[in-house]
């Protein structure tokens, strides 16, 4: 297997050529893969690297999408400004959602963030004056200026560009002192504190970061579909996000990309099962978890020596996921 240095530029070249040789539907699907990659990277930072068990990612995705769309509709902000703004708004909300994480962990945190996510969906549906309710919002095409390509191709390249940036940024973060701080908190919060690492600060950073990624992904998604609606950010979405990260490989950048690709391709493939789609999806999910505990990245790591990510293997074993704990002020875990 040739090293990453060779494979990645080749892959990039192939992807650049795709919109000119594939049919529009496939181009659309690959655009979705790019968006999901960004999402999965963000979630992996929070869940895989920082070890924060948060169920709010689909909500962040939705907040980003709605923020970008509503900024345009209510305030006339152009998409090109609305996208980063939407990401920042989502990041700010991510910080707020992360506040309970400073006191809760494990399943309690999961439940709190799950409740938040569901509440968000409820709000989307029941606040029609602001969010236009269950019917959703049509999102207009942003202008691509001097670009000679068609709309779908433009969006494809936009998504590709942002995804590449996201992979690059994540790769760097993971191998920096910030990345080490995340893993330190995940593997032993007590030891991390003894090294001067402030868990509260880095948990907040992790939440903000993953929310930012999801928010950007949401904004992109809104212009890919030209439509945002509450059911797109439901619990089912949340399951897909988690599946991407777990099946791809917790705590690995490669895993995020692979997981995103797989979880986009899977529903397409499963369409052939028609009514048994749910059963097939659930069964595949269970089989992956039972037989591939380290995810797809784990398989790659074992077979292809050159691909080992230098840092941060996936957390494995019950020791890394203790029973839910409530942190009382004078007795830190």
């Amino acid at each position, binding site marked *: 297997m040739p090293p990453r240095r060779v494979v990645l530029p080749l892959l990039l070249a192939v992807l650049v050529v795709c919109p000119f040789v594939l049919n529009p539907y496939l181009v659309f699907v690959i655009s979705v893969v790019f968006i999901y990659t960004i999402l999965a990277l963000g979630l992996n930072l929070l869940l895989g690297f920082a070890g924060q068990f948060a169920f709010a990612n689909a909500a962040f995705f939705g907040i980003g999408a709605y923020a970008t769309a509503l900024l345009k509709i209510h305030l006339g902000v152009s998409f090109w400004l609305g996208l980063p703004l939407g990401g920042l708004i989502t990041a700010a909300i991510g910080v707020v959602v992360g506040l309970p994480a400073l006191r809760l962990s494990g399943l309690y945190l999961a439940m709190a963030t799950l409740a938040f996510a569901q509440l968000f969906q409820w709000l989307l549906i029941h606040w029609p004056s602001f969010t236009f309710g269950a019917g959703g919002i049509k999102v207009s095409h942003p202008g691509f200026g001097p670009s000679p390509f068609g709309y779908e191709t433009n969006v494809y390249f936009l998504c590709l560009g942002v995804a590449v940036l996201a992979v690059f940024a994540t790769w760097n973060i993971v191998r920096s*002192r910030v990345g080490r701080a995340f893993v330190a908190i995940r593997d032993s919060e*007590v030891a991390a504190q*003894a*090294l001067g690492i402030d868990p509260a600060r880095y948990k907040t950073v992790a939440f903000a970061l993953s929310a930012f990624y999801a928010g950007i992904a949401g904004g992109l998604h809104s212009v890919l579909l030209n439509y945002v609606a509450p059911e797109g950010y439901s619990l089912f979405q949340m399951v897909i996000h988690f599946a991407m990260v777990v099946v791809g490989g917790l705590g690995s950048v490669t895993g995020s990309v692979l997981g995103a690709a797989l979880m986009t391709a899977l529903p397409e493939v499963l369409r052939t099962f028609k009514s048994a789609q749910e059963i097939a999806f659930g069964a595949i999910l269970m089989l992956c978890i039972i037989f591939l505990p380290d995810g797809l990245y784990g398989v790659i790591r074992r077979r292809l020596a050159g691909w080992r990510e230098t840092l941060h*293997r996936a957390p494995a074993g019950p020791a890394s996921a203790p029973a839910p704990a409530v942190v009382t002020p004078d*007795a830190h875990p």
Partner: protein
Amino acid sequence: MAFGGLIALKSVTMDVAAGEIRGLIGPNGAGKSTLFNVLSGLNRPQRGRVLFQGDDLLALRPHQVASRGIARTFQAAHLFRGMTVLENVMAGLHDRARGGVLSSALSLPAMRRAEDEARVRAFEALRFIEMDHVRDRLATELSYGQQRLVEIARALVREPTLLLLDEPAAGLSVARITGVDELLRRIRNEKGITIVLVEHVIRLVMGISDQVTVLNYGEKIAEGPPERIREDRAVIEAYLGKEDAGARH
């Protein structure tokens, strides 16, 4: 220091001089680990003060205490399982460096320089404890004894003023224990670091400490140079029980 109804420490006063090696011993449940937790900010006692270089550290969070120059190790080696040995030690330099998410994400030259520096210092810390040959192995691949040593390196790389060692010899072979003895001497002599160690291996503690403090049931029952402690009645009773109790077995 009380946990609900359980009083772990009842009024312990301890003064440690700079450059000293202080042993902290006592039977199980005496409150030694709790004392360490109080010192490093993990438990906050209901009353008392922790004076370090003139400042009261009691109100500080654990990571702030650490940044003041106090490093500690733990009974169960708390190495970060997801990292290699070198990365573990590099993590020890966290609060000595700067750089947030944005500069990390962009991989700015200043960040890369800082990373290289950290790598070099971590390597040197590993060399000091003679573990540099395993630096690229995952932390989980090491034996327990090796992990404990790496933990010490991770604490040392921070160039702390005070080093709190929680049972550094626990579970080690006799040969390794001698190694620990030598290592502690080198740490104090070559680096001038003050050491407080909790230990059950009496041979090690008595051999290396300048002074020994003995706890029992959350109270200090004796303090002084090792030779005196060895003969102290209260200490012997605490460990072996009174004569009659011994006879009943």
